[in-house]
């Protein structure tokens, strides 16, 4: 048995044991995807470094060379936060369900449903003051999302209907029903979208003048960060979190331990749906401001990969969702600054999500390599020791 070459050994050493791999594997997946994107950019004849820097510039992480009037790095950064908020909520939504062993693939549908209900109930109420309208939007989003998702949980616990199937079906139902009502009632013929919601109901303060700058201030981000802390608290400190993790680990053992698996299944879907609902209102009544019919946005699906990239851990998800939002937001500037088409941004995102989904495989390779290396090292040192003795 031979030891691996120094490069492999270095990589194996850096990846560390299983505890450390929770961080090193996602980082490694991101590195791989950046390398793969570099290849694409090189084929396009662009300098990859330049492209990555312009992604960061476009999203307000690094300063641009020049800014238009009333714009600055802060403007870009706030606009990044504005886009990030729904993504963070959506990823948390997926994570909560996943920890309990459920796969919520219906986040996009739940977002749309919550966004639509909030839009028609509060979004066009001209006379409602902001202090009433905004909390109302949040509450309606939360409740609507929770109700829709708990249907999935109910179907699962009552008739053991696979949550993936019912969520996908619900996605279709919501998409077509909402599209019908948007087109029939609140359609703006010139934009082919719903009329924009009132400023007082919108969760992002758009084009706000502050210190000589015009900025979009996302109020939802405060809620999103609070949600991260709450979800983390739920799973590390709360009895409910313990029960949900037990169900996720072994539903039979959870039932044997006296956990009410059926009720908790509905409950966890409701929590997941509430977070999806918040993602919906911060998107449709925050970042975007209106509803586009016939479209189910990709946020809820990307969130699944973002959640996996972040190990279904709320803290990890902060980083993984921010990364995806940076690329998403920066890709406009990528096009305007160095002439790489905006879609390349989506391609990089896709590559990251692809590699992150391979995390378990990478982890398997690393652990096998480490075991092999360990065996080889011991064998060699053992043999060496014996020879020395002889």
């Amino acid at each position, binding site marked *: 048995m031979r030891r691996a070459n120094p490069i492999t050994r270095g990589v194996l050493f850096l990846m560390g044991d299983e505890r450390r791999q929770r961080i090193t594997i996602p980082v490694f997946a991101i590195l791989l995807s950046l390398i793969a994107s570099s290849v694409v950019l090189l084929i396009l004849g662009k300098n990859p470094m330049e492209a990555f820097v312009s992604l960061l510039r476009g999203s307000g992480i690094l300063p641009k060379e020049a800014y238009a009037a009333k714009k600055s790095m802060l403007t870009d950064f706030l606009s990044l936060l504005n886009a990030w908020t729904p993504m963070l909520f959506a990823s948390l939504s997926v994570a909560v369900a996943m920890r309990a062993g459920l796969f919520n693939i219906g986040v996009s549908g739940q977002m749309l449903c919550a966004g639509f209900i909030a839009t028609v109930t509060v979004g066009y109420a001209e006379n409602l003051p902001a202090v009433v309208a905004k909390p109302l939007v949040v509450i309606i989003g939360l409740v609507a999302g929770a109700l829709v998702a708990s249907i999935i949980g109910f179907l699962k616990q009552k008739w053991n209907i696979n949550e993936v199937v019912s969520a996908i079906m619900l996605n279709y139902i919501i998409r077509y029903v909402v599209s019908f009502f948007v087109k029939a009632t609140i359609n703006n013929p010139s934009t082919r979208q719903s009329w924009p919601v009132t400023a007082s109901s919108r969760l992002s303060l758009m084009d706000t003048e502050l210190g000589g700058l015009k900025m979009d201030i996302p109020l939802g981000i405060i809620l999103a960060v609070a949600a991260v802390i709450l979800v983390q608290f739920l799973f590390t400190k709360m009895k409910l979190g313990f029960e949900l993790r*037990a169900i996720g680990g072994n539903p039979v053992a959870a039932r044997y331990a*006296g956990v*009410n698996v059926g009720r908790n299944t509905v409950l966890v879907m409701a929590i997941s749906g509430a977070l999806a609902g918040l993602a919906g209102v911060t998107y449709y009544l925050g970042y975007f401001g209106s509803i586009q019919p016939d479209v189910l946005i990709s946020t809820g699906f990307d969130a699944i990969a973002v959640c996996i990239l972040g190990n279904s851990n709320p803290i990890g998800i902060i980083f993984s969702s921010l990364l995806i939002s940076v690329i998403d937001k920066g890709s406009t500037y990528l096009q305007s600054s160095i002439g790489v088409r905006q879609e390349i941004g989506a391609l990089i995102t896709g590559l990251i999500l692809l590699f992150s989904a391979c995390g378990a495989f990478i982890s398997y390779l690393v652990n096998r390599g480490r075991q092999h290396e360990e*065996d080889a090292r011991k064998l060699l040192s053992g043999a060496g020791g014996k020879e020395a003795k002889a």
Partner: protein
Amino acid sequence: MADEYIVEMRHITKRFPGIVANDDISLGIKKGEIFALLGENGAGKSTLMSMLFGMYEPDEGEIYIRGKREHITSPNYATKLNIGMVHQHFKLVSNYTIAENIILGIEPKRRAGIFPVVDIKSTNEKVAALSKQYGLEVDPKAKIEDINVSTQQRVEILKMLYREAEILIFDEPTAVLTPQEIDFLLQIIRGLREGGKTIILITHKLEEIKQVADRCAILNRGKLIDILDVASTSTQTMANLMVGREVDFVVDKAPAKFGKEVLRVEHLTVKNRDNFPVVKDVSFSVRAGEIFAIAGVSGNGQVEIADAVAGMVRAAEGTITLNGTDITHMDIRSRTDLGISYIPEDRQNMGLVLDFTLEDNLALKTYYREPFCHKGILNHEAFSQYGQRLIGEYDIRSGQGKDTVVRSMSGGNQQKAIVAREIELASPLMIFVQPTRGLDIGAIENIHRQILIERDKGRAILLISLELDEIMGLADTIGVIFSGELLKTAPADTLTTNEVGQFMMGVKQNEES
């Protein structure tokens, strides 16, 4: 010397994080003998044989096969050296037929036109011939999911024979079998020896070794204690060497002091998923300080009785009363709170969340109570103190103490964890289903003692076991179940092992008079 041995292991050492699984072990196995490896759980038997089968490589030491030094780097290479292994947990594809499983990986090919196809017809014939030759009767076309455990084991043996294995390793082959099936298996093993095969038997059951083995190596905590000639050694000596101290075969049992009735089951009927009654009109009661044992051949409804009392399955008819409270329709949590401890048959799929830490698993039935939980918030300090105490008191061994992920623990220690958790509940009724299945003598003795201690504390104990010896040794009252019906209930001292055995086979009560 070396060439007289077909397998020789010299100075083998294997370490795992936090433990030396094998410490400088040297042994030789002769061609055509049945060589037993005896040791408690975690003694290093399986590790040692896994190295022979190429699943691990030794950290130190050398392996010689037929006098030639070999580096066995993979099970494939071991197969090439004519070494085969039947694992404790079978490795079969459940929706494939027996023949398909046997040829998996080395499929005989033929051509149908331009397409290469698996030649299943000739395989079926070859498998049938092979099974006839060694007396391992199977139907090559039956699917694995439709056949019972002992037939599945025969498939594993055929798999090795099909690959022309000369050295056959059996890892705890009898752990999952009934007494009759064990007898049959031992016969097969003897037949294989007559056929010129070399057999290595990993086990902790002394009677089996006494029955079939020629020589036996005893391992204790990773070290080789001795290699003995089985014919000239008593089981008592082997047991003492294996455990490392004197072992009591006879359970010291004080006379029972029965108290008031704790559990009363009346006219209980339980139906399975196909709405077929698996428990039929069963009635019995268990008093405080009494061990009520249900004897029966596996699959006759005894596990369903336990599940129904614990609340895991619904009672279709009848009532279950605990300390005067009707619990027939109560949920599981309320039953636990009212006083039921339950050690289930399937420890990995029911008794534990394998990916939880040991400390979380030890608190799996109490996490919602004070001091573990206060107003919905967990107290991790309480978890860890409680875990630490139970690990110490019940001698639960693991790599990283209370933070060990239970999946990585040995079966015996997983069982100790469940027993610890359930006994600590201090419930008036304790249900033990197969509490010693797959455990070694030391651990069995320990659990038997614990069951008796709990009985003497005045708990009512419902014991369900397939081991007749266990039932005869522990029970105060015996109920024999056959095909879902309780055929006979009587005080233990009025029944002989033979009588119980007959009832287990379905001989009706009226035939005895």
